[in-house]
């Protein structure tokens, strides 16, 4: 997603802006640009990586500037379509994240008034609109312009005539202000600021702020002052460095024993979880709404919550949720978003509240947008995740869902004491069990080589490992670009069998639960169609070896928890396949970490 940064202070702005942009690289982008004001306005932009931009940069003195990484929505990636955009007089520069829905109408009107456009983007209308409203007061011009705009945005704008300020505003797209000493910062996301400050203000929807060297004033779009509290961020900027690993993804996979422990520390004794009183409420059904990997976590959560609470649970993709159109929905809606900024999930949270449901968010980012849209929040505590392919945030989301299921199950009396003891024991063992999976990387790497030249692959599982198969396939396609599909094993015979051949490896998850025998026969059916089978099951499972061409083993955790060691095996499998194929692992093509457009 697009990334915005801004700086105003006593230091030279350019190096700070470029450095901060690099810390937003994880959001995914295809062009970048920077504007600096020092008496006059200087502007440089380039399609491609930030390094392409750096090649073009000449010296740009000045202690005020804004910069941007763009992820194309309107208009292809190109120099012209990169931000910042300038007005006709080249006195004002603007960067924007989001989508202006009524930009066609605005653009026609502005063009008829004589404004010259240089790009195909929706953003450029904003800068001309502000220009048309500019009467010597940038803030007033922005307020006036926003009244005419429909859509979602976070924006930052600077003007040569007012070199003492950055004017920023947001509605539906994230924006934070970082507070320094004699300098202040603006960014789409916290990692861009961490090198400079930990004191941040999260702007909220319909906030407009004037950021100067010494302060920040926040107002709403009507110009009335509002108070926003200063938060302190616990992460360190350095947390976002790779620390000896070739890729963030591998670093994050290896962090899972620790991340999993952090996610349950202090939450295990008694398995009681406080979620704003909701843990004691008597819901008759639950819905989970999320996107991507979080959606898969929700699907695992369905099996876990149903087993632990006895309640019916449904799962919906956040981007589809709004179309299901129930005036009255399930009494509890759980929204899962790693970043807490996914536009689809945020929209679903608002919709859910409108429908009168209680809402609970599971997120990794304290203070993120979603946490302000819901009744209660559970944090995953996985630490910052930079690799676009989610790894440790998925497994910690699962831990939180297990803990939630256990807490609700206890309150409802559906979880028996021996189940509780077994779950506590199983959870506490996980950090070590996960370490065992990581220590098995040699075997996983061999399996990766075995399938690295495949064009298509199928991942199958049953019961709680059906979503694990979906997530395993997602990891594979995200980073290795192999066409991978996850399927319920029982569905093979209803169609996909037609695609099987010796060219299509099938990855089968077969842990010893009540579906094991069925999985073994599915593997037999696959082999009979000459497709090679890679089986993943519990250690010391001799039968598995007989039924597959290749097998990988995980510690025999209780079946409820088995998605965790299995998915970590599949994460490593995807990683090593991608590495063998020479793919750019941390920034897969066409993908963004935090999807802040719908």
């Amino acid at each position, binding site marked *: 997603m697009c990334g915005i940064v801004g700086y105003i202070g006593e230091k030279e702005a350019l190096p700070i802006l470029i450095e901060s942009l690099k810390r937003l690289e994880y959001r995914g982008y295809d062009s970048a640009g920077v504007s600096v004001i020092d008496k006059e306005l200087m502007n440089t932009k380039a399609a491609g990586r930030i390094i392409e931009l750096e090649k073009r940069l000449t010296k740009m003195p000045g202690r005020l500037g804004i910069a941007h990484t763009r992820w194309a929505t309107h208009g292809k990636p190109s120099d012209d379509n990169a931000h910042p955009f300038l007005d006709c007089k080249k006195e004002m520069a603007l960067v924007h994240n989001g989508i202006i829905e009524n930009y066609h109408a605005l653009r026609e009107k502005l063009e008829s008034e004589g404004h010259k456009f240089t790009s195909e983007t929706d953003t450029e209308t904003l800068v001309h609109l502000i220009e048309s409203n500019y009467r010597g007061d940038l803030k007033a011009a922005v307020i006036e312009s926003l009244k005419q705009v429909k859509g979602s945005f976070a924006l930052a704008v600077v003007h040569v005539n007012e070199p003492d300020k950055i004017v920023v505003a947001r509605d539906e797209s994230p924006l934070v202000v970082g507070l320094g000493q004699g300098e202040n910062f603006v960014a789409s996301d916290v990692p861009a600021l961490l090198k400079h400050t930990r004191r941040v203000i999260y702007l909220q929807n319909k906030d407009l702020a004037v950021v100067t060297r010494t302060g920040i004033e926040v107002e709403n779009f009507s110009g009335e002052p509002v108070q926003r509290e200063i938060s302190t961020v616990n992460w360190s900027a350095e947390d976002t460095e790779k620390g*000896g690993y070739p890729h963030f993804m591998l670093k994050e996979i290896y962090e899972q024993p620790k991340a999993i422990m952090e996610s349950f520390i202090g939450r295990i004794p008694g398995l009681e979880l406080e979620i704003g009183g909701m843990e004691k409420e008597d819901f008759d059904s639950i819905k989970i709404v999320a996107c991507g990997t979080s959606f898969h976590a929700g699907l695992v959560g369905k099996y876990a919550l149903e087993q632990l609470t006895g309640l019916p649970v449904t799962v919906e993709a956040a981007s589809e949720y709004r179309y299901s159109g129930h005036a009255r929905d399930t009494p509890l809606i759980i929204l899962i978003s790693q970043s807490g900024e996914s536009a689809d999930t945020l929209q679903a949270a608002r919709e859910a509240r409108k429908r009168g449901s209680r809402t609970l968010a599971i997120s990794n980012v304290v203070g993120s947008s979603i946490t302000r849209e819901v009744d209660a929040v559970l944090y995953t505590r996985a630490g910052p995740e930079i690799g676009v392919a989610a790894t440790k945030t998925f497994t910690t989301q699962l831990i939180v869902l297990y803990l939630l299921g256990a807490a609700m199950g206890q309150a409802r009396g559906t979880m028996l004491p021996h189940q509780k003891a077994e779950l506590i024991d199983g959870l506490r063992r996980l950090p*070590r069990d996960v370490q065992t999976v990581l220590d098995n990387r040699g075997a996983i790497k061999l399996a990766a080589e075995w399938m690295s030249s495949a064009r298509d692959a199928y991942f199958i599982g049953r019961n709680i490992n059906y979503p694990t198969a979906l997530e395993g396939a997602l990891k594979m396609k995200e980073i290795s670009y192999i066409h991978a599909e996850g399927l319920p094993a029982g569905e093979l015979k209803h169609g996909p069998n037609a695609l099987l051949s010796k060219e299509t490896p099938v990855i089968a998850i077969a842990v010893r639960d009540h579906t094991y025998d069925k999985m073994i026969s599915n593997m037999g059916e696959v082999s009979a169609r000459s497709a090679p089978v890679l089986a993943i099951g519990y250690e010391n499972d001799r039968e598995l070896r007989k039924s597959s061409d290749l097998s990988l083993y995980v510690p025999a955790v209780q079946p409820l928890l088995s998605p965790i060691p299995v998915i970590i095996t599949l994460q490593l499998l995807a990683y090593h396949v991608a590495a063998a194929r020479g793919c750019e692992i941390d920034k897969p093509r066409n993908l963004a970490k935090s999807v802040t457009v719908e």
Partner: protein
Amino acid sequence: MAQLKAVVLAAGEGIRLRPLTLYKPKVMIKVANRPILEYVVRALAQNKIKDIVMVVGYRRERIMTYFEDGQKFGVNIEYEVQDKQLGTAHALSLAEGKTGERFLVMPGDNIADAAMIRMLLASDTPNSIAVTESAQPSKYGVVLLKGKKVTKIVEKPESPMGNLISTGLFFLSDKVFEHVRRCAIAGHHDITAVFQDMMASGEELSALKTVAKWSDVVYPWDLLDLNARVLSEGGESTAGTIEKGVHLKGSVQVGEGSVIRSGTYIEGPVRIGRGCDIGPNVCIFPSTCIGDNVTIQSSTEIRESLLMNDVSIGPGCLLSHSVIGDGTRVGAHFVAGADKAQVILERELHEVPSLGVIMGEDTTIGSNVTVDPGIFIGSSCKIASLKNIHRNIPDNSSVV
């Protein structure tokens, strides 16, 4: 002047510490709830040495995941990978070009005191070796001196020569790399050979005798002594939940998210990590250290022992002078009492005054198992209930 850098050698496996090093390098074994290497990094940070080139090799992911880029510890760590552990000089050679003109070299696997580094820096003489007196010089590089000048270094001498040994802490100039290369061509990859070569070509090597504390861990039972020593430095802090009826005496630290249940008696110095569940009615005596996410069930007694992370101890157990590796799970009524023990390691007989059991990682033990003093049980073993263990159990074994 550029910031002085340090090269920390952390690539080794630590074979003599098996089974504790089957899944992790020696430098990552925890003493008083911190990896040995963390003491080294902290000692450097205390001396304002912020830039560290860390040479890693064996199971390096454990080191990288823990230290990341070092910022949490106030330093910048750059990693260099030594794929084969050929020797200390070879490890050092990987840092060539990254050190600056003068730099420190430190072993990552013994606990160096910050004062020792300070002394070496204060001398301001490159080509200095920190030396110390040892009761067992034959295990180390023995250094012979004339005044402050080193006249000879012999690695693990067979016949007694003196009791001054090299601590592995050096203050060097980048000229050393020429000698490292020369020795490598001749097939010598250890640092002693490099020093000999330097002296042979007329360079002066001086020794600084340290009185600061220096602790090396050679054998697993050394961990217990070192742990006791670090714990004796004290400190009290309790986070987590301490139930009513718990008695804490002396220096006791309890980490965040831990629960100490009613009737538990803890006599410090004792350190307990984060997210543990201990009790009811557990007795913990000095000098014991318990890692993170550890469960100890009712009526168990633990004395002078080291329990690493994710360990689970059943009800009614006795553990004394013992080391239990990560993720090991012990059933009810396990007994590992301590006594004078004779241990044979590397074909050498060691008399240890008091030792219980040394147990590796990820081992599972049934109930009512009793272990003789001084026994080693490997990593990833499974021991059935009602067994008496009289002999060492190798890694990955099942006792049925």
